[in-house]
């Protein structure tokens, strides 16, 4: 009897509605941000820790070549899967250059046999002096590689 009364007095069910207007606002802002930063070609590249690429103010983005990647850090040179560590580049430049040239020579010969050319993508730290780059350019020239791409980050306005 009591149960029946309770059922009769129960308030009618109202339709549950969720206010999603604020959520829509957030999603619209995210959508606009993503559309502004959208790129049709995703440039994926691995940059080792401690490497600060130089920055450029440019509107032109350019295409990335991922042929032979050479990373020049303050304490090591990475070329392909080879790591050439050094404590002082000036003191060890002969050994570093030799090791670098040997690797590039082998790679270049292999590419030549396949009918391809070698292009080096150079990714150096912004604080590296030109004397280091110069040494490696000479070593690459000795290995028969004369085409390079210097990689930089585009500064946001």
């Amino acid at each position, binding site marked *: 009897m009591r149960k029946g009364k309770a059922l009769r007095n129960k308030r009618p069910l109202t339709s549950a509605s969720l206010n999603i207007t604020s959520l829509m606002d957030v999603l619209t802002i995210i959508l606009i941000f993503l559309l502004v930063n959208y790129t049709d070609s995703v440039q994926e590249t691995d940059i080792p820790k401690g490497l600060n690429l130089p920055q450029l103010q*440019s509107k032109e983005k350019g295409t990335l070549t991922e042929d032979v990647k050479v990373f020049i850090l303050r304490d090591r040179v990475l070329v392909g899967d080879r790591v050439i560590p050094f404590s002082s580049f000036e003191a060890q430049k002969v050994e570093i250059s030799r090791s670098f040239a040997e690797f590039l020579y082998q790679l270049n010969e292999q590419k030549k046999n396949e009918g391809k050319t070698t292009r080096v993508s150079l990714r150096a730290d912004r604080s590296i002096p030109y004397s280091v780059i110069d040494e490696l*350019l000479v070593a690459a020239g000795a290995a028969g590689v004369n085409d390079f791409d210097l*990689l930089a980050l585009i500064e946001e306005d």
Partner: protein
Amino acid sequence: MRRKRRQLTDLRKGVQSSGDGDSNLLPIMSLMLILIPFLVGQVAFMHLKSISINTPGASSSEELEEDPKEKSVVIQLDVYHQKYQVQLLEESSGNPIAVTDLVAGSQAQQRLFALLQQWRRYYPKLKILLVNIDSSILYQDMVRVLDTCRKPIELAGQSTPFKFKVIVVPKEST
């Protein structure tokens, strides 16, 4: 009174009212949920740029066509800490036709580009830019100068902008 009763009946029956602010946003939400993950996958937070250069030697890059009637000239750019020295040289003899010193600073890149544009427009055969860089110049500054050298130049009557072939001359090789 009648309107109120009708609203109550509608509510009991589960009929949604079509009043203001109750528009159905669910299809838009579904679209957003598809669009956002796709765009997140395509977004680039860092944009990279590569500057093509060559060193002296047999290069795999495109060969430059020769026209014997025109005077063959090259630009030689010497990059120092304090200044950039830009020389227009006769290719056969190496004699300078014009020499300009630009004081390194905030305006130096713009002045260098203006000079390169001016010389390229005056000498249609001018295609090569030789660059000598001082040993103590940092990679950051070197890249900025080389980027200016590789900037596209709009030329009258050409649909594609012109870019100099930049040859960096290593010090050790000289």
